[in-house]
């Protein structure tokens, strides 16, 4: 494994760097030998907000932990803003899905410790921590010991600790878990601001609902490999302007497929029968009408919108759990 320093921590130089994070052929296996990442390649540009999307166990969190320097890959090359030096760590903001805190100290004291450890002076650390706590709705809990915090408050505190020093590279594992709607919107705004200042953000998530509002690019990860990646619009466009229908048939007459109307494409003749047609409500009526006219009896029909979940399914062949 080789780690290359490609830029010192000055933002101006970072801004000139292309591919602030580059992983090439990363491999990682658990200590029991079970592989997690298989020759994973990834490139993330300065200022991008990128989502790693995949089901549980796909390797998203492992990749984040490698990028954070917590895990060392078994093979492959990794380029980070400032390598794994102390300066590189200070430039990093990492919020794991579950993170420990100093339970007897207040949330404010916890966040101040991490902001100061990342190099902020006392006054600027306090100002930034207070600002981020306020943005995420944690102000009322700031002075209470973390031991008394709810799950949601702990999640918010992790985010404050990761963001308060305004890192060049922010890594957030399932950042929306445990957050109320207002905090989710506030987090998106904070990350957008960070991106506007050429801070790079990588989030791992299997919740697709909020990602289109937040991210510039999405990387689908499945079984430790990049299955597809691109901008949200590109991924959606790659599916074409069709809607997919999964039809469970009560009765399936002989030669059904051949009797379907033109404009309906058969994707799979198995069970369920998978068809594609144009978009909108008219397509559903068209499919149902064609099936009934051909003598089929429909038990149920599932309409697959051309959303990111469907894009993931088409890229990987598996469903993304809700």
């Amino acid at each position: 494994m080789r780690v290359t320093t490609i830029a010192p921590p000055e933002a101006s130089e970072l801004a000139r760097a292309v591919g602030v994070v580059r992983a090439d052929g990363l491999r990682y296996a658990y200590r029991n030998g079970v592989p997690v990442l298989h020759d994973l390649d990834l490139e993330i540009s300065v200022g991008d907000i990128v989502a790693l999307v995949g089901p549980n166990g796909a390797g998203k969190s492992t990749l984040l932990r490698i990028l954070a320097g917590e895990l060392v890959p078994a093979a492959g090359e990794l380029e980070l803003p400032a390598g794994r030096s102390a300066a590189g760590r200070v430039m990093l903001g990492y919020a794991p899905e579950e993170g420990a805190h100093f339970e007897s100290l207040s949330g404010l004291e916890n966040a101040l410790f991490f902001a100061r450890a990342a190099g902020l002076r006392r006054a600027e650390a306090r100002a930034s921590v207070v600002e981020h706590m306020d943005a995420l709705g944690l102000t009322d809990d700031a002075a209470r010991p973390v031991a008394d915090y709810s799950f949601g408050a702990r999640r918010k505190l992790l985010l404050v600790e990761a963001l308060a020093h305004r890192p060049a590279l922010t890594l957030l594992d399932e950042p929306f878990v445990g957050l109320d709607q207002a905090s989710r919107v506030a987090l998106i705004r904070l990350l957008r601001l960070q991106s506007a200042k050429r801070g790079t953000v990588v989030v791992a998530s299997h919740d697709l609902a909020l990602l289109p509002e937040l991210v510039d690019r999405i990387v689908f990860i499945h079984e430790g490999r990049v299955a597809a990646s691109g901008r949200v619009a590109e991924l959606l466009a790659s599916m074409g302007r069709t809607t997919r229908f999964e039809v469970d048939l009560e009765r399936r007459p002989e030669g059904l497929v051949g009797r379907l109307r033109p404009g309906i494409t058969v994707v799979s003749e198995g069970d369920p029968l998978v068809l594609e047609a144009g978009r909108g409500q008219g397509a559903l009526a068209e499919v149902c009408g064609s099936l009934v006219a051909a003598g089929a009896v429909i038990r149920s029909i599932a309409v697959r919108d051309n959303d990111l979940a469907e894009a993931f399914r088409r890229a990987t062949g598996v469903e993304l759990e809700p």
Partner: protein
Amino acid sequence: MTALVWGLEWRIALARRRLFVLNTVVPLLLVVPVATGAAPAVHAAAIYAVLFVIFSTFGSAIPLVRDAENGMTARMLLGGVSPSGYLLQRAAAGAALDGLQLIPALVVAGFGAGASPRALLVTFGALLGTAWVGNLIGPLVAVTTRSLAEAALFTAVCTLLLLHMSGVFRTPAPSSYGALVEAASPFRALHEALLGMGSAGPVGGGGALAAWAVLLAAGTAVFAGPVTRALRRVSRG
């Protein structure tokens, strides 16, 4: 790196008031019957030495393993805390806190032995040095363990062995191999100071204690990276 970890350790200790009081009161309660029970000086000194040394080594190793297990060590190091700063500042804060919490017990022990203020001050100095060494031994014990139970077991074994080598449990014959080991042992100074509290006699072992204090600190600074990496492995089983 400023003294962030030092400050953190003090804030945590002061925030956990019940534990702070217990850490002060329990040694005191253990010392009182010995100090007021007319125990022979040699036995009293051995009991005090065991108590004070175990207090500092346990207080260092077990929180280290706990923090490694819950991922706090990894978070601090990823957050920008340097490995050497983490270990040395933690040891310094631990030693200072140990010294502070053991003052009442030491005063009672001194009162029981009829110690002069000067003898008490010398003993307190030896106690602080011993606490510093004990807190630096903690990380070495912690990296060899995989759980809190193992940490407690290994600390007890290691501490009792070092106490034995320091002549706390028996006096080695002069010029023997045991006497050489005793002269170089880190806890001899505290034991001798506790033994000499009543007689105001000379205290041996100060040089060995100072050497251990410096060498362990230097070793901790040099090997802080591997030590903290080993500590972080604790959290992954």
